Each structure stands twice: as C-alpha cells, then as structure tokens.
C-alpha cells in the first residue's frame, strides 16, 4: 500500500522551491476537454479548440496547501484508443488521477469503467482518483445526468465533480481536492496507515495476552 511514500518527499535538485512534488495524470476519452481543463487550471485561459494531444504533454503549477509548497506536475494524455499503451506506461508514479468524461457524450461516460480498470492495473496502489464530468456549461446538450455521474463515482469509490473548463466551474476545486486527498493519504501512510497499527486493532493485541510483559533474554 504505502508504496508511494518513498517519492513523496522527493525533491529535485534543480528546483528547490517546493516541499513536495505530486505527479497527476488527466485521463479520459478523446475530446472530453482534458487539455482545456488543464489550461484553465494552469494558465487560467480557455480556447475553444486545442490541437488534439499527441502522446502526452504536461504543465506545472505550484500551490500552497497546509503551509507546504506543492509542485504539481500535471500530465495531459491523448485520449485516442491507439494511445492507450503509450499513456498507460506513465500511470506508474502518478499519485493522482483526474478521470474525465464529457457530460454531453454518452460514450465517454460509458468508458469511465474501463479507464478505472486501467488505473487499477497500471498505477500505484494508493493513487487517488477523482471523477470529473466536464463541459457542465453545456446543460442543454447534457446526456449524462449529474446523478448518474455521482452514482458511478460512488460505485468506483472516487470523489466526484462536475466542472466546466470554459466557464471555470470547479476546476480549481477539483485539483485542490485531489491534492488534499493525496496529502491525507500520505500522512495516513506515514504515521498510522500501516497495518502495523491498523492490523493490531483488528487482531488480538499482544499486550492482551496472559503472558507477563517481561521476559529475559538468553544471557
């Protein structure tokens, strides 16, 4: 489980201006708005049409969270089927995923389950995932209701947001929530998350044994 902790605190020698660096991946079907979403967050800009991502691209943003400077390296992926094998290779090492679908596109929503399986297969065990229904500004073209999104997210165990990169709805919130979840997980696994502790609660505790607490050694 706590596999990522080794790199959580890792700092790049070239850039010392942060306390933590989180690698985050945005995935989802093609043209659900991954690149727009990222540009909205990183540059606070919006263009109706970005060139379709080829392979993988990234942006960086440093934020403050709980008195810590956190550098987010956010990787934007190509959504086309053909790029799956290439992009999944990058899943390992990511601490968080934003799994995105387009609320005006049924197919992209149906693919969410698949994407989630991909994450489970290729990522670290403790990677955190957020489900995002993008383009919520286009309510008149909506085909996936918010409830369905929420249900699916509950089913998959992810947190859920509906967002719009165009109208800047929930974009910042999404990323910040993801960062918070990662931080929570991190501190959990650092002090209490170990089965060493949690496990001790489940099973009989050693101290409950009738045995006297002391025992001498072979000396």
């Amino acid at each position: 489980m706590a596999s990522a902790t080794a790199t959580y605190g890792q700092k790049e020698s070239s850039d010392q201006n942060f306390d933590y660096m989180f690698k985050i991946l945005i995935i989802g079907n093609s043209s659900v708005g991954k690149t727009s979403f990222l540009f909205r967050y990183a540059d606070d800009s919006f263009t109706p049409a970005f060139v379709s991502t080829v392979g993988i691209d990234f942006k960086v943003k440093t934020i403050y969270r709980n008195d810590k400077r956190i550098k987010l390296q956010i990787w934007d992926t190509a959504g086309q089927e053909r790029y799956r094998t290439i992009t999944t290779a990058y899943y390992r090492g990511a601490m968080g995923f934003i799994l995105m679908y387009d609320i005006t596109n049924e197919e992209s929503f149906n693919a969410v389950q698949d994407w989630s399986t991909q994450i489970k297969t290729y990522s670290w065990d403790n990677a955190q995932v957020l489900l995002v229904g993008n383009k919520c500004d286009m309510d008149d073209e909506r085909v996936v209701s918010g409830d369905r999104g929420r249900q699916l997210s509950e089913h998959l165990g992810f947190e859920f947001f509906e967002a719009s990169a165009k109208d800047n709805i929930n974009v910042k919130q999404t990323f910040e929530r993801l960062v918070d979840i990662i931080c929570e997980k991190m501190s959990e696994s650092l002090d209490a998350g170990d089965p060493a502790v949690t496990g001790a609660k489940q099973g009989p505790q050693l101290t409950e044994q009738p045995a006297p607490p002391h025992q001498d050694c072979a000396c």
Partner: protein
Amino acid sequence: MKKAYDQNMEMATNDNDELSVLTPQPFGEWLKMLCASQPQADFWFKSMELDLLILQPESEVFEITDFTTASEWERFVSRVEEMLNDWKLMGNSGGNMSPEKGEYTSGTWEEKSQDINFADFKFYITHHFLKQKYGKDDGKDKLEEDTFPLAMQDLLCMNNDFPPRAHCLVRWYGIREFVVISPGTNCEAIISESKCNLLLSSISISLANSGCQVPVFVQIQQKWRRMYAGECQGPGVRTDFEMVHLRKVPNQYNHLSGLLDIFKSKIGCTLSPLPPVNIAIRFTYILQDWQQYSWPQQPPGRTYRTEDDGGGVSFRTVPTDSCPDCIICGLFALHDEVLFPHIAKSMLVGVDAQHSQLSPPQVPHHRFQRLVLTERPQAQRGSFYCYFFRICICKEIVTSVLSRSTVRSGGKKSMRMSLLLEVKFHNNRPESSCSTAFWNHSLKKPISNTLHQASQGFTEMLTQIPLYLFPDAAVEKSSDNSKDNTAQSNAWGKADQDKNDNNLFLQLKSAPSDSLTYRLALCVCLVNYNHGGLRAVAHLWQEFVLELRYRWENNYLIYGLTGGPPDLRCCLLHQKLQMLNCCIERKRARDEARKFLEGSKERERRVWGGCQNVRPVPESSTAMTVSTSTKEVSPGKSWDSWSDSDDEFFECLSDQGEIEVAHTQGESKAEGRLHPYNNMTLLNSMEPLYVPVTQEPAPMTEDLLEEQSEVLAKLGTSAEGTHLRARMQSACLLSDMESFKAANPGCVLEDFVRWYSPRDYMKEEVADERGNTVLKGELSARMKIPGNMWVEAWETARVTPARRQRRLFDDTKEAEKVLHYLALQKPADLTRHLLPCILHAAILKLKEEESIEDIPSVKQSIKQATCQASKLLQPPNHDYKKLECIQHMLRNEEHAVAVTSDILPSFTVAVKDQVIREARKRVVSDTNGRYVIIIDVKLLAKMLARRLEKVLPTILELETHALRDSAGAVPVEEFKKCLPERIITYLNEQKLGVADGNPPVARLVLGRTTVKKHSPYTKALEDRRFCMLNVERFDLSGAPSTSVTCF
C-alpha cells in the same frame, strides 16, 4: 516547562553573559546547546535551579507573556511531566525497604503505557514497576530530605541479582521502578546522536521540574539492539545510565580483569587504595550435543528450515547446593569483597571460563530455580538473507571477482562450482555459441579432474541450478524444438500464481513467483550461502548473462517469463528480461518471415500449404504477403546480421493475418490491410475503409520510460515545448498514417480521423437542395487548426505499409542494450536487483508455514513486515539499514513459526487439541520482539522426553509458566519426577560437557562499588556496571552517580 523557562528568563536577566537567551528564538539556541553538550546543559539547569531558589520572590515581576506558543520541544517536555504526574511518580521515592531476596522473581511486574508525541514523532511511554506487597508509604514522612532515590539504592542492593524473568533494564540495573520512552510502532529508531541528546535533555528537564526520582530511560538505536540511555535525579545527586553495545566482544574485555579496568577508569577515582568492588557473575551454558547432526541442504524454493547451528537448551540456576543434575548453567555469585583487588590473577584470566577456575564444578552454590530452553535463533533463512545483504554492500565487479577466483586456488569449492556451472549450462544447449566453445575449450581439463573430487551431493546440487533456471533446456535436448513452448512457459508462469501471491509481488515490486527472476534470486541466495559466496555469485551471474546472449543470438525465447511488454510493476531486472524476450520474439518473427519468404521464392510453383509444413511457423508470423519489396532480401546475408543495417523494416505481426491484396479488385496498390472498419466506406470513393496493419508501440522498461519522461519534461511548459513534445511523439502517429494511406488508396485525412479519433469527425444531418436529409461530416474545429500536428503529419506521411516502414522499435539495439546492461551489473547490483524477490520468497515461505500453524501474532507481524518492505522497496532509494530491520523481523517470525511447528507436534499425541490451541495463542512476542511459548511445566517435561527420543535439533524457546509462578524455585526433585530416567542420565552426561570446556554462551558480570568523591563532605556515590558478554553481542552498561552540588 513554563517554570523552567521562567527560571531561565530570570537567569538571563541576572547574568549579562546569558543575555543571548532573550533573543527572538531563545529555544532554538537552547536546543543547539543542548544537543551539543547535554551533560553541561543539564548541569546548567541544576545550578540554575539553585540560583533560582534565591531569586524566587522576584519571579512574578518577570512575567513573560510572549512565549505562550510553546515549541514542540517544550510541549513534549510538559507532556512527559504530565505523564509522570499522572502516574504519581513525583516527589521523593526514597526510603522504601530494599527488596527482599528473590522478590523480583516472585513479585508481579506491572506496566502502564501511553502514547506521547514529539512534534509528529510518536513515542510510547511506559511505566514499569514491581508491585509491592506492603503499603508503599510506610514511614515515608519520616524520611530525611537527603536520602538517595530508591533507584540508586536498588543499584547497590545485591538481593536480586540476575532476576530470571524481568525487563532487561531490571537485570542490568536492579531497579524496581522505571519509565521507558521508546519510539512508536511505526516510527524510526532514534539513531542520530543529536536526537538522542535532545530526548535526554527533555527528560532531564522533566525530572527536574517534577522532582521525580524514578529513573527515566530512552530507547535509542534500533530496537533489537536494546540500547537504553537514561537518567535518575535525586536531591543533589544524579545517576546517568549509559550503555555501549558492540556486536563482538573486544579482546581485552573478554576477561574479568579487562572489565575491571574499564570499571576503575570509569569511576575516575583517584583515591587509593581503591574501594572494594562487588562482582557477581553468571554463566549460561548450552547443550551442544544436540546439534551434532548435519542437515542436508534442500533445494531452494522448498523448505529450508532445518539447520540451526549451536542451538540447544540451557538451564539456569541460582545458588544452592543441591543440584547435581543441573545441566547447563552455572550461576556464580561471588559476593566477596575480598575478591577484589586481592583476587588471584589466575582467577581473573578467563571469564571465558575455559581456563579459569570459575568452572561449574567449583560453583559454590546451586539452586535450581527455573528452566529455560533457549535457542540460538540462527534460523537458516535468516543467515541466508544476512549473507545476501553483505553482498549488497560489496563493490567489486564481476570480472575482478572472477579473476581473483582463478588466481586463488584456495577457493576450491567455488572454483569447482563455477566450472561445473559452465559445464551444466553449456551441456544443456543443443549447440554451442561462440563464447561457450571458448569456455569449454579452455576449461575442459580441470573439469574432469574436479568432477571426480566433487562430492556427489554437491555435484547434483549444481547440476540442478541451470536446469532449475532454464528448465526448457532439458526439453530442448529431447525434442529439439522448444521454440514453441513459449506459450506453455507463459501459461505456466501465470497459472502458478494465486491471487494473494499476485498481490504480494506487486506490493514488493518483485517478480511473479516461479518466474525466471524469482528463481534466479533463490539460486543466487543458495549459491552465495552454500557454495562459495561472492565468487560463486559472480560466476553464476556471468553464466546467466552468457546464456541470455546465447538465447538472443539463437532466437530461443527465455523460459518462464510472462509475455508481452515489460510489466512495470515488477522489479527492473525482471523488466529487462521481459524486454529481452520481446526483442527475441520480434526478431524471431522477422526471421521466420524472411525464411518463409525465401522458401516461397524457391518453391514458387508450389502450393501454399506445402510451404508451411516445411518449417513450423509460429502463428503470429503468418502475416505475410507474397509481394516482395526490392529492399527486403539481399541473398547471402545471414539472418542474424539483418538487424545491423540502418534501414530496418517492421514486419507486421498480427493475429488475424492480413487480407490478401489479391482479393481486392481494382485497387491493386493497397497494402497492409487488416480488416474493414465498421462497414464504412471512404469519403471520396465507394471503397470500404480498411484498418491498416500497424506497428506496435515500442515496449519500455521503467528506466527507459523515466529517461523519456525526463526528456519530455525538460522541454518545459511553454507552447514551443508542447509543440516539440508532440513532434517527438509523433513517430507513432506518422507510422499509423502511412500504414493507413497504404491500406486505403485515395483516402483523405477525414477518413483517417474517422478511424483514429472518431469524435473529431462531426456528423450533421443537413437538408440538401432537394429536401432530403443527408449526413454531412467535417473535421472538428481542433483538427482544422491550420498547421496543426495532425494535418502536418498527414501531409508528410508517405504511402508505406507498416512492414516497409522504419521500425519504431529497434529490437537489435534494445536487446544489445539490455545485454550490455546486464553484463555490467556487479554482484552487488545483482543482489540489489534481486532483493525484493528474496524478501518476497521469504514472506511467501513464512506465510505458507504460518498457515499450517495458524499463529495470530505471527500473522500480524508478517503483515507488518510486508507492509514495511513494500514501502521500502519502492524506488528510487533502498534504505538498506531499514531493510535489514525487516530481515530481522522476518527472522523473528520464522523463529516463531519454527517454535510452534517444532514443538506443538510433540504434543499431539499426549495432549488434547485444546491445549495446542491454547499454546498457539500463547505464542507472544516479548519486549524484545522475540517469541516465546508459555507452557505448563509438566507438558514441557513430556515434550522434552519426546524430543530427546527423537533427538531433533531445536529451535525453540520455552518459558515455563508453572515454574515462574511457584515463586522462582521448583524443587529439583519434583522436576526430575517428570522426566524419564534416561533423559536424566543424558542430562547428567551433558554436565561433563561443561567441564570439558564448552564455553558458556552468555556471561554476565555485575560490578558495583561505592566511592567517596571530591571531598569527604559529599555523600558516597555508587557505580554499578553491568556487562553482558555473548556470542553475538557485547553490552556494557553503567550507572555512575555524580553529585551535582560542588563544593
């Protein structure tokens, strides 16, 4: 804390030199100071306090309100104080009666624990105390102000030396009440000196503030070292508890006089004559004879818990005179003040007992007190790993190790081993590669010689290694057609894993059990442990790499690896091997295709089916066309040399096979079609839209991937960077476009997008002039951006089917890279690569054994160890210190399992199931993390009988519950009643063994003295030192008391 700080403030204001304390961060300064020189700091506190007594009235005046936000350190100190308060440990503890003889054994020890935090670091604070029989406060009020704290009195009290069952601190210092602060379950050990000093100063302050006279200890260093530092404060006096731990006993301290020298020097007493020193000594002996059985080494992967070296049973006694049957242990109490300094030199030479007169027959007193069966927990796997770890640190490279081994004839065993390995490796091959021939040639003679000398078992073992690693080699010999058992081998690798295991190897980032990597790890471990250590490992590795090269050059797939691209969840070595397999697979497919092509040329007129029968062609490479490109074959060049040229082409691999061009009418140009796509037709013609045969993206290992993503990341986040990145990654897109163009002559970008990225083709129903609705489509806005990547690529893409394109994945280059990488790995690197696999194997084995025995506590520790290991084994950096701790943990658990599996079966006949279950529950870990089973004494006797009959070696540690309960002394006669006659005889015989010079396994020396220091006005201060000499460790602890009031 507040108090201390206020005091400090006053100090500062009254003393100009200390003004610095008032600077904005006084505590930072403090901490630095404390870390730098703890004792001085303490002293400073003390004297400060004295001064403050005088200044007390003024204290209200200097109310400092600025420091309401306490530092973490302050908070910690006050928390410790709180705990001391809660447990009512404040104030004077002195004046209690000194404990009665044997009270530590007969009394009940209790403990209370609490969590306590220093910043986010979790500690465990525990109060240990002996439950007193009578009221504690008898006459407490009558005490003088000046009495020593109880602990200091206990230090000198000789009534309770060597309590058999007590916390190690009790045994070392003889104290009856103390507090220990140790790191929490998941926290690291306190290893750095400054951290340790910081803790000690915290304690100092807490003790001073609370006036607590109970000693407080801090556990430092790794847990298994059992190192404690502590302090006790009394009125005008303090005792420091300090300790040294070494893994080996330094020579000069191997005998009593050496120890006395330290003792004297530590007292620092200039007075002469020296005051008398009390010495008490205890030896522990172990029955050696049980171990005279060699245990054959079993092949790796199966059980290898059998051997344990030097294990046995030890009995301990305390002085009485009636134990002729006491087998092993002599406990000598030389409470003789005359002993020192007048003790005869000859007596002092050997605390190592062999030459001294302190031998069992001369023991003044024996009393059978209790029975302890101890074990030497050298469980074999433990030492396996231990040795393995040693290699990890070694820096030598393979060749230098090997050259050394050839030069030296001393390492005969390893030489033989390496030679045999070669023979075995190479004999298994149907044909010899170049390098093999060389080896065989140059080494043939010595082989035949050594073969004769080699013991049968040894040779057999070695024969198994290559076969174990490459089981297909044997198959190859018989059928000579192992090329097709890739599928089998892969299936084999997969089928063997159950779900749990699957999860485990992912957690540890090792490799699937039974994969080649995993087996290699076991072999390396075994070879290292049993057959010549480092050199053997180097040899095995060299041969292994040679074998891989051979397989690459001859197109034999590597056996026992799951197919497909490297599994990034496995360890890097495993990925590299998988990568190599990918290369071999592709090369093989290509070669087969060419051979096939050539064949078909030769027999142009023959029927298709006939061709296929000539040569078994793997299914995957049937995708071929008759149409030959001019470039493809240049006769005369061997197949192998093909890949060297720069213009290499991709041979399509697809399961479906390509639809023959011949079948399509008209468009004879079309090449590389896979299948029609969803009944679509091209936009500009009625031709169906075909999915082309495409190149597979290049497989990547994690290091390559990292390299690549680093390159991509370095381009920065600017628009140009983004564009450049896209361009760098466009090779795959371009290749796909070219294939598409080849498969669909006359196509346009829209067609490509419809297949490749359907959502970028917008369809709209539009009414045409006649009013009919027509489906009209166009590219999405983003595809229409002028000069965008896709358009650009489309324009540059030529019409080329996949098989004639440049390869996206250059298998030759990649394979060479992998082989080169492997060849460069030092033995140390190799072991590092394989470490996860070894831990994986160890955990699996433990789990398996545990599942039979079903011990809850072990189950948990395994979980814990697994979890910690999985944390530590994640790249980038392996912390070998911590991994070693895991190794210790695993060893402990192995031991626990062994205890149960060895002992419990002995009961099955005699005792009901219920008892067994009961006993299982009672496998508990003690404070030192070791396991014991508590069993009734009568059962024990029965068991002993059974065991001795079987004369099995023991890996066990038993604590006899009943013995302990009966006030520390079981009459020997009673115990003897439980034992069969012949066992008693056996035990009696063993006693001779002791006299014959069996060294004691553990030696304990206690020394104490009272010295008047400084001046006659000061009180006499005590010093007690404890020394434990053991086979594995040397502990020296001391508790000198010093006066804090100077005259």
